[in-house]
């Protein structure tokens, strides 16, 4: 595995200082990093989970829209940002690895470098409530 782009490295550094849960997807579509606040949301540390594809990520969690209807991986805001190269926002309900269902707002943006280089995507999670 090669080194991540400096843009992604700086995003990780930035995310590691924030108390807002943040996911980072690399240019290869792998979940490359999530910060400590995101570990609390997911119920598993990044050290335990390691890098994984969006498909693997989607298979680990039960994810629905806010009314409880299951949604496809490519409807996740993070997947839209990475696949379609555009920002996306949505409200999701998911069951975390530690058990409870959580309701979150997710805002994702693509990370675009010079010469339209697609370097990855970033998603910020905001917990609405737990149920």
């Amino acid at each position, binding site marked *: 595995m090669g080194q991540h782009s400096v843009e992604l490295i700086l995003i990780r*550094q930035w995310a590691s200082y924030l108390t807002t849960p943040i996911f980072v997807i690399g240019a290869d579509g792998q979940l490359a990093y999530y910060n400590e606040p995101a570990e609390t949301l997911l119920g598993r540390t990044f050290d335990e989970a390691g890098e994984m594809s969006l498909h693997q990520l989607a298979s680990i969690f039960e994810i629905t829209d806010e009314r409880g209807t299951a949604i496809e991986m490519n409807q996740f805001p993070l997947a839209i940002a990475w696949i379609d190269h555009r920002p996306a926002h949505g409200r999701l309900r998911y069951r975390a690895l530690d058990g409870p269902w959580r309701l979150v707002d997710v805002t994702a943006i693509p990370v675009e470098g010079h010469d339209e280089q697609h370097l990855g995507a970033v998603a910020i999670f905001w917990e609405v409530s737990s149920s």
Partner: protein
Amino acid sequence: MKVTLWGTRGSLADAGPQTVRYGGNTACVEVQGEDGSVLVLDAGTGIRRLGTGLAREVRRVDILLTHLHMDHIQGLGFFAPLYQSGMEVHIWGPPSAMQGLRTRLARYMSPPLFPVLIRDLPCDLQIHDAPRGRFTIGEFVIDADLVCHPGPTMGFRITERDAAVCYLPDHEPALGAREFPMARRWTSGHDLALDSDLLIHDAQYADDEYETQIGWGHSTMSQAMRFAAMVRARRLVTFHHDPSHDDASLDALVDRTQAECDCDVDLVAGTEGASFAVKS
């Protein structure tokens, strides 16, 4: 290939009796290939003496600019080959999303900052946005990538046959890291510098100076040592010396870093005029 340091000072030229050995000129390094081809890394004030001493038979020079901070371009207007008709000069620099390299360089190479316009230079001047990735200049293979420093800044790896030089004069890979070095994949400059035979790296600060300069885009000498160890560089040349560091304080900083850093790295203090024969 032969690598010569024409300017090792960072941020601001500082000539005087206190900087005689390490030198007062700002960033400029010459890389001469076995066939005599010439690469110039950055155009700080050290480029003036390089230009006046070039062999007469050299008809093409390629200047690779890491970025456009003043200490890396200030000597450009005083580079003699620019004023020689028939000389082919290529300038490569970091791409910007907003303006081409020529437009950005013209902000310096035009009145009121400089009397000569780029368009009036008699040489055959060609200005390129350096591609992010691999390209070739003559027999040199160049790998270029953006590295951690304010504003678009490139690092370069220059390979001739099996010998590799990595040039990271302005680089803060420890920015934001709770521990440094971090994992290889998350370290700026790692792939450029990996297994290089000669690593010329930013070593501007002493450890106690870094606290107040975080985010300014530079490294401490001990960070440079740890970075060099991580990338398994065969030799580290310190570079971009702080203008407030005189020869005596730099000697002391080198000694202290060698003594305190538990790294298996061949550390060479970067002094103006030093040359290195680089072989794999």
